[in-house]
């Protein structure tokens, strides 16, 4: 069963971090705008973070390897639909997820 204390700690943690990331920059806008390090990290970070999240979620979906082929196929399909379908996120995510759900349940 879900541990309420743990859940409360998670909610408090993400609340504070999320709010701080949104609020603190307004207070220190000038030094942030001038910092070369911060601006460089801003351009370099996003793509790496999202690809790590993609790999990490892929890893948990593929599990012990039994669904590796299905997950890999669904990723290829998602990429294909996204690039050929005009980068419509809902369409690409929908197509990939539908394919994965069908493969897992039908085969």
């Amino acid at each position, binding site marked *: 069963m879900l541990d309420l204390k743990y*859940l409360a700690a998670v909610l408090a943690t993400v*609340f504070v971090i999320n709010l701080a990331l949104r609020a603190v920059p307004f207070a220190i806008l000038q030094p942030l705008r001038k910092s070369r390090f911060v601006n460089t990290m801003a*351009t370099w970070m996003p793509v*790496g973070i999202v690809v790590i999240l993609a790999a990490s979620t892929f890893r948990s*979906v593929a599990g012990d390897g039994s669904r590796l082929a299905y997950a890999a196929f669904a990723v290829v399909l998602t990429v294909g639909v996204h690039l050929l379908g005009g980068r419509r*996120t809902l369409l690409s995510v929908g197509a*990939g997820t539908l394919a994965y759900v069908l493969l897992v349940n039908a085969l």
Partner: protein
Amino acid sequence: MDALVVTSRKAEIAAGVRASLAAGLGMYPIGLAFGLLVIQAGLPWWVAPALSIACFAGSLELLLIGMIAAATPLATIALTAFLVNFRHVFYAFTFPLHVVRNRFALAYSVYTLVDEAYAVTAANPRGWTSWRLVTMQAAFQFYWVGGGLTGVLVGSLLPARIEGLEFALCALFVTLTLDACRSRDGVPSLLLAALSFSIAIVVAPHAALFVGLLLFIATLVARYLVVRGRDA
């Protein structure tokens, strides 16, 4: 005079709702998927609105479902939240917060500074008023929480768990990667991230996300020092 103020306030609220509609069309279905995944992960229904109120940030909330269900350590959750939402730091540069005067409205506007709110104001930088801006942000939260509640309702009505639905989150990050890496400039970061996560899987298979993210940041700092040394 008062009638005039009321009319302009009404017009601004209407303009805020109009400004929210296009992005809202995308937020509601993703919110629905979020609610559905909360039920599928075996969590109680109220976790969906609780997460959307504690931290209004779509992709992080989606990630948190799996992390909470797996009882992930708080340190990993904190690092993930920090890095996934780090991009918000740069929204302050252009977000028209200066139009908001009321203290509560100001706090709410900062708290609900989601990607969509930033994107809409970045695309239309002029003409924002306090009522218009805060109405748009409140509408965004309304669509998202509404989508989440619809999702938990749908999820609890389904006779059985839909196997494989959790792939949606992986697919979402795949599309975000494609959108973040549109030019060759993104390739070094992509490779450093792939290397960092691969090392993490080998050396710390049970904390791969945490270690992988830390390694990636370390490689970026090293890259920054190298590039700066070369330029100097």
